[in-house]
Structures are given as C-alpha cells and as structure tokens.
C-alpha cells in the first residue's frame, strides 16, 4: 500500500457516493420494479438471492446426509420423527436426499452461482457498458431459472427423486420417482444457462468500450467468456438428452434400452458430453474471480496475463474432449477409455498454468489478508488438492479401484466446494461493498473464511482415506471400520455449516450496521471500481477511462477520506481514450 500523501497537482478521480436517485437499488421502489426490471444489476442481485436460497436448501440436505452417516447403520433417517410423517424406508429417504442435494447444488446453485449472479452484476460494469446486450433475454433467463427451480422443488414434493443427479438409465426410466418433473426442471434450467451465456458472449464481443482490446479485459471477463462458450455449446446437448430420456420414459423409444438394441452407455455419453464441460462451467468463473482477488489484494500486477487468459479458453475447449473419463468403468471400449484418459491429462496443463501464475502474482506482492484474500488463498490450497486428486482418477488403473468410492466424492467436493464455492464466497465478499454499498465487519469475515477452510477439510479429507480403502459412495450404511472417519466428516460438515452461517450473518449485519462503502474499497483497477458503490442505474455517467486492469500504480490510498482513489498522471493516451482531465461531454461513446 502506498504512502498517505497524495501527489500534488495530479488529477484525482473519485466518484464519491451515489445519491438516492442514482443508486440502482433505490432509483425505483416496489416489488414490481424488481420483478420486471431489465437492469442487469438488479437481475444479478435476484439471482444472488435465488442461488443462495438453493444453496441453503441443498446445504441442509447435505447436513442431513452427514447426520445420517453418523452411525454405521444410519442415524438420522432412522429417528422416530421420520417414521411419523413418511412411510418410506430410511434408505429410500437417504437416496432421495443425496439425489436432491446433488441435483439442486449442481443445477440450481453451482452452475448459475458465479456466471449468473456475480457475472450479471459485473460483466457490463467491468466493460463500462450500461447493460448486457439483451436485457429482456436476461430477465427471461432469470425467470426460466425460477421455473426450473419450481420444477425441482415439485419433484421433491411429488414422489421424490432417487436417481442421483446424473439420471442414469436404465434406473431413471424404470423408477417410480418423479424423474420427468426433475428432468423438465433441468431442461428449463439449461435454457436459462444458455441464454445467460449467449448474452455474455454478445456483450463482451460487441459492447467493449473504445480502448478495451481483448487483452485489456479483466481476467474475470475472459473466464466468463470461456464459460459462456461452454454454456452455449454443451447445454443444448443436455437439453436433448433429457428430452430423449423423457421420451424414453413416456414412449419407450428404446434408444437407451438394451432390450431394444439401445445402450445405457449411450445415455452416459450424451449426458457427459454436457456434464463434463459443465464442470468447467462451474470452475472457470471461479478461476476468473481468483485472478481478480489475488491481483487486487496483493496490489500487484497479475503475472502472466495472457497465459491465464488463453488457459481459460484452452480449458473450455479441452473440456469437450474428456467426458469419457466419467465412464471408464461403464463398459466403454478399451480403446476409447485410453483415448479419454490421455486427453484428460491435457486439461491439467492449463489448470496448473493458472495456479502457478496466481502464486507468482502473490510473490513479493503486498498481500492484505482481507476476507476475500483469505478465501482466495484457501481456494488455492483446496483447488490444488482437488485438481491433483483428479489425476488419480484420470489414470485408468487407479480409477478402476477408486471409481464410485468416497475418493470421487472427496475429489469433486474439493473442486466444487473448495474451488467454486470458496471462490464464490470470496467474490461475494470482494464485490459486496460494490453491490450493496456497505462495508462488512472484516474480523467476522475472516473468521468465516477460517471456519469454512477448517470445516471443509475436516469433512472431506477423511473421505479421501475412506475412498481409497473402498468405502463406496451413495450408500446409506457402511462397515463399522469406517465409523470414526465418517463421524469426523460429520463433525467437519457441522463446522463448515457454522462457517457459512457466520459468513451469512456478517453480510446481513453489514446491511444494517455497515459503514458506507467508498467507490474503491480495495484499490482495484478494473472499471467496476471507477463507479460509485453501489453503481448508478446506468453504471457510468461518462465513458470510463480504460487502462490496464491490473496496473495499480495509479491507485492511491487517500488517508483523509479512507478510500482508494485513482490518480491520473500525465501519460500517453490509449487510442480512442479521452484525456482524463478534460470534462467528458456525455456518456455517448463513438
């Protein structure tokens, strides 16, 4: 951080605070002004609320799973209280609970969390644009998400869902649970995801401000762009897969039925052609957040900008070549398994490039252990474990042993929770002042980060051990020798839940007790810090000055006002850029 005194004579930019009329949160009021809003920021906030609620529901289901696994014969669903309101077998309840946990987490939370909630808020602001390219489509995609969520919830109340989130045939075509409702829900959610991705690609392509070339974009936008490519290319295949699954259930068309010369492995191919790239839909935006967080909170230019940018695209494209590694034991031909295994290893290259670049960025940076940075560092640790254990599973020989064990469960939770969720939380803490205009309690945030980190590791590290010793996943009961590890895991999950609760309380408290947030509380150089917190309705009163998004040289700490301001020295102007000291005539850009 720089010294307190600001250079004399320099042009200092600080947008100050928005008036009530400018503030997008207060510019209009009433339920309908939110329900029918076309403002990307409000839609983003509605998404944030929606995905948080889904996360809460799915998280409680996860706690229920863990509590059931407290004893080898199953604890929670054997309690008399469950007998009183359902006549299902405890094991059936367990099946439905883990299915809904997975399905809600994947379709309702992780996939839309960062792109739809944070992305919607940030993409146009980072671009200096007034809105996304298709605001109405954006709202439509939010409501599709809501309808999809309703379908999922109705599946819960109809006759449950016990197929696992993957809806594998032949079980999904024969079970009596409400597969059709749930698949319809996933189908609709797919369209929501497609429309969001489509919107972002177009926005980033056509609405960049003058001066912002592709390689002047913040890395979050690169990550969002790569994610959107996957969303547009892969999600339709999920759509048709689920449609065929419904057709299979309704008309028995036989595509996935060996009795009619169909093949359940075909279903798995179809499903994973989407769902493996979907894994990158979940993790790529997290990479984008981490790139921002590490650079800003280390106050150091991102290391290897182009490598991080290209590796996002590389992951997006390579992600399409490796879906078969979910099916090594499903009866694929051995040639295909070898090809997919070899391709799987290539994905680790761009992922590793990113991790190395983040570490290099932190090296000799002036790191502030703010809450977002705590989350970012714990991401680095957890994601690395998750990524490296993925190599065990990509190897054919070890996968035969580890497939469908808790090792897999631990692996993807390290990537999805330790990676995506932690990055999401980091992102929410990072941009919370921008979104609501209030600062949260820093100490509380740090405590939550610590609790999440400890709780998470306590939950999932034992699962690696159990998995490698042969504890199969999706079982409601287990061998007594695993009891201690399972109990450790359950305790960890409660600790993790506590950490998340603390995070929620800290954020909610900030709304009532928080200090007013300055435009640039962290000293970031991307465009979203150049407008007020919260941003005005049209984001920017005038075309923002576009520079290097990771050049912190011009960001100075203003001691007297306790905020970061941008200090404009005399420098060469980027072509198309207006001189900083000249008053901009209008928000119109040419």
């Amino acid at each position, binding site marked *: 951080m720089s010294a307190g005194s600001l250079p004399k004579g320099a*042009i*200092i*930019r*600080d*947008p*100050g*605070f*928005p*008036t009530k*009329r*400018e503030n997008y949160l207060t510019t209009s009021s009433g339920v309908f002004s939110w329900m029918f809003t076309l403002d990307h920021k409000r839609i983003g906030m509605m998404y944030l609320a929606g995905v948080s609620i889904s996360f809460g529901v799915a998280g409680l289901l996860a706690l229920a799973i863990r509590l059931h696994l407290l004893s080898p014969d199953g604890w929670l669903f054997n309690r008399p209280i469950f007998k009183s309101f359902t006549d299902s077998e405890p094991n059936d309840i367990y099946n439905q609970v883990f299915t809904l946990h997975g399905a809600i987490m994947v379709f309702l939370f992780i996939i839309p969390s960062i792109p739809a909630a944070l992305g919607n808020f940030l993409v*146009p602001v980072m671009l200096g*644009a*007034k*809105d*996304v*390219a*298709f*605001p109405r*489509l954006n709202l439509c995609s939010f409501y599709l998400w809501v309808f999809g969520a309703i379908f999922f919830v109705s599946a819960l109340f109809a006759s449950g869902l016990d197929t696992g989130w993957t809806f594998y045939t032949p079980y999904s075509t024969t079970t009596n649970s409400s597969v059709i409702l749930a698949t319809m829900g996933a189908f609709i959610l797919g369209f929501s995801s497609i429309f969001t991705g*489509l*919107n972002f*690609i*177009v926005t980033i*392509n*056509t*609405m960049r401000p003058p001066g912002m070339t592709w390689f002047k974009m913040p890395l979050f936008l690169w990550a969002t762009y790569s994610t959107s490519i996957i969303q*547009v*290319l*892969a*999600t*339709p*295949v999920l759509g*048709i*897969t689920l*449609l*065929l699954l419904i*057709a299979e259930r*309704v*008309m*028995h*068309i*036989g*595509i996935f039925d060996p009795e*009619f*010369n*169909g093949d359940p492995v*075909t279903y798995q191919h*179809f499903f994973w052609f989407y769902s493996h790239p979907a894994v990158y839909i979940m993790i790529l935006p997290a990479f984008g957040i981490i790139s921002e967080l590490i650079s800003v909170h280390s106050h150091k230019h991102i290391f290897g900008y182009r490598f991080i940018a290209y590796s996002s695209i590389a992951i997006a494209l390579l992600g399409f070549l490796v879906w078969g590694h979910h099916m090594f034991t499903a009866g694929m031909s051995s040639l295909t398994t070898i090809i997919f295994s070899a391709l799987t290893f290539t994905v680790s290259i761009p992922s590793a490039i990113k991790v190395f670049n983040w570490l290099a960025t932190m090296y000799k940076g002036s790191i502030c252990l703010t809450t977002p940075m705590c989350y970012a560092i714990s991401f680095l640790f957890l994601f690395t474990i998750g990524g490296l254990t993925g190599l065990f599973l990509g190897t054919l020989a070890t996968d035969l042993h580890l497939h469908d064990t808790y090792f897999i469960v631990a692996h993807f939770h390290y990537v999805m929770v330790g990676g995506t969720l932690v990055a999401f939380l980091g992102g929410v803490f990072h941009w919370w002042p921008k979104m609501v205009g209030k600062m949260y309690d820093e100490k509380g945030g740090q405590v939550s980060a610590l609790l999440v980190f400890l709780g998470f590791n306590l939950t999932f590290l034992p699962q690696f051990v159990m998995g490698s010793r042969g504890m199969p996943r999706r079982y409601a009961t287990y061998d007594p020798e695993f009891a201690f590890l399972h109990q450790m895991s359950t305790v960890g999950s409660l600790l993790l839940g506590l950490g998340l609760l603390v995070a929620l309380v800290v954020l909610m408290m900030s709304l009532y007790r928080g200090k007013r947030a300055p435009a640039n509380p962290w000293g970031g150089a991307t465009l979203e810090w150049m407008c*007020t917190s919260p941003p*005005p309705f*049209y984001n920017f*009163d*005038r075309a923002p000055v576009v520079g290097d998004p990771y050049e912190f040289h011009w960001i100075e700490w203003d001691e007297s006002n306790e905020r970061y301001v941008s200090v404009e020295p005399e420098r060469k102007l980027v072509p198309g850029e207006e001189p900083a*000291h000249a*008053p901009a005539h*209008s*928000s*119109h*850009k040419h």
Partner: protein
Amino acid sequence: MSTIEAAGSDTHEDIDHGHDHDHPKFLAHHFDTPEQQFDSGKLGIWLFLVTEVLFFSGMFCAYAIFRMMRPEVFEGCSQFLNTKLGAINTGVLLFSSLTMAWAVRCAQTEEYKKLTALLACTLSCAMVFLGVKAIEYSHKWTIGLLPPKWFFYNPANPPHPHGGPNWLLWLCLPFALLLIGVLVWLVVSYVKGNRFHFDVAKPLSVVCASFFLGVGLGIILESGEAKHAVVASHSVSAQSDRHAANEATSESGILRERLLQDATNTGLREEALARRRQTDLAGGTVVADQSEVAGAVEHVPEEVLMKSRAGVFFGIYYCMTGVHAIHIIGGIIVLVWLLVRSVRQDFNRQYFGPVDYVGLYWHLVDLIWIYLFPLLYLIR
C-alpha cells in the same frame, strides 16, 4: 473542474440528458449505434442457432447409432414413409426460405406491402407443411406405426383401427378453431372499421386456411388415398378368397394392400409375398407361421416389423420430426409477431434486425429438414 470530482453536482445533468441526442426510437438505450445493436442481435441469433444445431445433434447421433446397428430396420421401415409427401414438404420449406430471404430484403429496402405479403407467404408455407405432416402422422397413428410403447402394427395380426380415435380430426381441430377465430377477428375488425386489425387479420386468415390446403394436398398425394373407397371395395371382394378372412376384411389389410400396390414399397411387398406363401402352405398355428416365414424370406421383414425393431425407428422418427415440427410452430409464432410489426411498419434500413434474425432461424429449420428428408424418407 475541481481536483477531486465529487459525484454530486454534475452527474445529475448527465442522468437527465442520460441517453441522448440522436437516439432513434428503435435503438435500445444501452447501444450507441443501430449497427452495434444489429451486430449484437446478429451474433446473438447465430449463437442461438449454434445451440439449435447441437440440440438436434443428439437425435442425429441416436439415429446414426441405430442405423449403424440395424440398417435393415431402417430400410424396412423407411418404406412406410411417403417419399412424395416428404418431397413436397421439402419443396414447401425451400419456397418458404426463399420468401423469407426475400422478406429480409424487403425490410432492408423498406417495401412494406411486399414485406407483409412475403411474411404471409412464408407463414402459409409453414402451415402447408404442418398440414401435410398432420396427414402423415394421423395415417401412421391409425395403423399403429408408433413408438414401442404404443406400437401395435403387426402384419400377422391385423389391428383394429375402428377402435382408435380419428387422429386426423384431432390434429385438424386446433387449426380449425384457429381459422374460425381469425375469421371472426377479420369480420369484427372489418365491421368496426379498425384498419390495422383488419390488415393483420387478412393475411392471417389466408395463413390459417393454408393448413387445410396442406391437408388436402396430403390426402391427394398419400398414395391412392383419393381412391381409397374404390380400392377398398375392390380389394375386399378380390382378396377375401385368397387371404385369411381376418386379414382382408380389416381396414389394415386394405391399407397394406394399398401400400403393396405402391411400386416403391418393395420391402412391404416382399413381406406380403412371404405371408401369402405362408397362408398358401397352410393356415396353421402362429408358431408354425412364424417359423415358415423366418425360413422362407431372407430379409425377415416380420422381424423388422416387431415392436422392438420398427418401434425404435418410429420412436426416432417421431422425436426428430416432432421436435422439428415444434420448431416450425415456434417459427410460426415469431413470424406472426413479425407480420404484425410489418403491418405497423416498424422496420427500416437501420432496424430490420428482427426480420433478419427470424429469417436466420427459419432457414435453420429448413436446413435441418434438408437433412431429415433424405435420412428418413430416402433409405433404400
């Protein structure tokens, strides 16, 4: 300007003249120029078409897998699809693509009358397509060529078509209601003298009527459908002695006979040949029959026409053409929206995007049919 730009004072003005001087009405507030708006929309629709292509790819993949594993099923079952109707529908869609492309041109050159006429023409073609499709579907449903779960077409045991509903009637019903509705609208708007409504309802009534043009066309072209009664009476009298009684008296028997007379139905003819031989041999038990047929004919069409074989083909057939038909219906809805807007003269040289985007979508639907037609109808 002060050294520190406080937000307060001068931003108010900015918001007031927020979006700004030469912003035409059709230009959304967050775009700077009509071209930026057009380019965004165009890229957006192309991305949407990409999703459509991938959406259909799943079904093409399923098709390819089955055709690879069971080529004889595809050859056998394709005989039940009427090539003439398929070809007519291809032509109709191609023509609608032409009128659509022309309509885009008219939107660009601001020829409103022509634009409306061409959009109506495109819509009519879409309706004709659906009309022909209704004939094809209802015909297959009646004789039981359905996905495995409902498949009841069985060459050995004739079905009971009289028990089933009249599918054609049910398919025509919504369109008939639509036509009546639009005609009422037309009359009411004429009586009330509402020029705009009348201008919209006029082409739309033609469009709705075109569905029945398609149905009529389908009836004529569905081989021998027009001569149905004649053929039926002939075949009943002529064949009752030659055939087992249960076969000839049933309508399915007639239908099958009619299909047999179609020179293109080679597979069916072979199959019938086999059965004739088997009835000639002896009207024995079912078990004996089957063994005879299996022994007598190389291509085993009996086996092809089983639920687990032909049913799968028709399952894929209904999925592919059904999803395609849903896209046609979706296209009709957006085209109607365009028609209303073109009557309102919303489009101009800087704002023809919607026509162009819908046009692209429509061409893609055509493009998919270009592949569906040979893949389903032209298997020999």
